[in-house]
């Protein structure tokens, strides 16, 4: 089995061919989405989930910390954005800042409790904390509106210096989400190729050795958890705008499991771009299989089970294996079995 560490570091300018393809695809999406039978709202949703999934993969794929309660932070971001609009001021930047801050705080708090854990205990603790947040979202009626959620969250205008752009229609909101996504992905790709990303991978491979090599493992784990919660919060803020509401369902164990499924199906364990593939596969499955049968989750779940059994590296891992087979038709087979 291959892993992320088999991919060489790309230092310097982050505009690799894959990055260019990604940016071009994101930038041109509104022009071909409807031509292939999709709708522009889907674009927003996919952009938000890619942002969320890539932030999650810093924790899941790079640091090897298997959080099963990450839905909490996108939910907190969404609520913070909505509450800021309704109680403080109708402002895009303020709301997004509030979303990031709230999710960062929650993430930092949880990270303080879980950063010295590993493996399944880490997963169990993150589930427990995720459930606490989900439970609070349902029960704090006066703050969050209970099970109905916060309704009527506005889509504030984007104010950039003298520029004022309305984000009311899905088209302009997509451009905004895509812009945020593009910047975030550039930043993340820089980050994972920086020493920080390398240390995260060292922690995943052997935490004790990383500690003996002199790295402050606890602080690194704490930092990556908090960072990934902050990115989830940002995604949550945009999500609240897209949905014009915030509700507790996104914080449930089901949804937290869904993001893990997306990242794993796409191959987040073996590639920086894995989460993108995973999110695309999930939404295509939802819309295509969901259009044929109501039980699409059954088929997606079955596909997931089979994939964990046979190819846990996911779609990106499969692509990697195929590419290496094509490149070295004979030498590839033993190399691939070595792990």
């Amino acid at each position, binding site marked *: 089995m291959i892993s992320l560490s088999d991919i060489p570091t790309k230092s310097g300018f982050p505009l690799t061919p894959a990055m260019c393809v990604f940016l071009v695809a994101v930038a041109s999406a509104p022009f071909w989405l409807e031509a292939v039978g999709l709708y522009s709202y889907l674009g927003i949703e996919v952009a938000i989930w890619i942002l969320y999934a890539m932030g999650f993969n810093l924790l899941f794929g790079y640091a090897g910390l*298997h959080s*099963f309660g990450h839905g909490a932070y996108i939910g907190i971001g969404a609520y913070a954005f909505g509450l800021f609009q309704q109680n403080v001021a109708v402002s895009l930047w303020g709301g997004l800042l509030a979303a990031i801050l709230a999710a960062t705080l929650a993430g930092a708090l949880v990270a303080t*409790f879980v950063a010295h*854990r*590993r*493996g*399944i*205990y880490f*997963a*169990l*603790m993150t*589930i*427990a*904390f995720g*459930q*606490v947040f989900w*439970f*609070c979202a349902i*029960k704090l009626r006066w703050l969050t509106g209970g099970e109905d959620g916060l309704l009527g969250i506005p889509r504030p205008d984007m104010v950039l210096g003298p520029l004022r752009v309305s984000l009311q229609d899905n088209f302009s909101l997509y451009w905004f989400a895509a812009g945020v996504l593009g910047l975030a992905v550039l930043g993340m790709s820089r980050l994972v190729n920086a020493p920080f990303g390398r240390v995260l991978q060292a922690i995943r491979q052997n935490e004790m050795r990383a500690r003996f090599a002199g790295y402050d493992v606890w602080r690194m784990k704490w930092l990556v958890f908090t960072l990934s919660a902050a990115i989830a919060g940002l995604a949550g803020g945009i999500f609240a705008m897209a949905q014009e509401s915030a509700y507790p369902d996104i914080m449930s*164990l*089901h949804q937290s*499991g869904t993001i*893990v*499924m997306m990242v*794993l199906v796409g191959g987040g364990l073996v590639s920086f771009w894995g989460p993108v593939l995973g999110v695309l596969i999930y939404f295509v499955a939802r819309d295509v299989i969901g259009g044929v049968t109501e*039980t699409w*989750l*059954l088929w*997606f*779940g*079955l596909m*997931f*089970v089979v994939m*964990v*059994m*046979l190819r*846990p590296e996911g779609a990106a891992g499969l692509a990697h294996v195929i590419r290496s087979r094509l490149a070295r038709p004979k030498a590839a087979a033993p190399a691939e079995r070595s792990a």
Partner: protein
Amino acid sequence: MYDLIPHIVNGLTLGLLFALIALGFTLIVGVMEVINLAHGAFFALGAYFAVAVIGGSWFSGTEFGAWWLGLPLATRYVVALIFGPICAAIAGMVLELCLRPTYGKAPLYGLLLTFGAALVIEELIRVFWGTGEQSLTIPQTINGAFLLGGLIFSKYKFFAAAFAVLAIFLVWLLLERTPYGAIIKAGSHDSEMVRALGYDLSKLRLAVFAFGACLAGLAGITMAPIWGLRPHIGIDVVIPAFLIIVIGGVGSFWGAVAAAMLVGLSVGISGAYAPAWAMLSMYILLILVVGVRARGLLGRKSALEN
């Protein structure tokens, strides 16, 4: 204090039922080192099969169906009590076979696979039984309420608690007083050694998984009349179960029972003061216990920590 008695009784009943769910879970975790997120799905499957057996919906219209529905409810209930857990056990064996490729890999894969399986089983339940709420009818003798010291108690809760105590006792007997139990426990300490002694490890795993799923199915049938039956009950149930495992210490029999009673009591008593927040008390309990003692109340060092 006197007002609290019904809540304490409620809490103890709940704790015993939680213990029943958690025991199957901890057995599987102990021997297989797999966190089985599909445990709740087996719970649901057991209860749904019991509903099908009691209601006779599969063979309604046939001669056998008419004869079956003519039998007294108590007979049908007893048959369901046997049939439901067996179906859950079969599902458990299928899942164990699917899990085989993940052995020896990171424990994450077992967790993910069982999460996927839970999703699949839940959707299958929706397909076969519909999305609505189902109810499990129980015989007259254990239905209704009785008065004790001026307080009203539900008969069924006492039946369920007694049933849970019996089941827990039988599991204890199996684990502590039979050679099978010795092998199972040895398997959870050192599976390599068990294999070296000539026991078939894959058969042992299959049996343990079936047994754990069977216990979950039994708990499902016992719990369904109290909690109701919805397709997503599996997820609702698996969370308390594994909180209990973590609080009690992974793989520990008495740890699971003690933690289940503790959780049941804290939910019951906090329910007296703030009903809406009752379920939160178990999360707080978890954070308190695990914050102080990472391995849980009676846990020992486990391979899962790595």
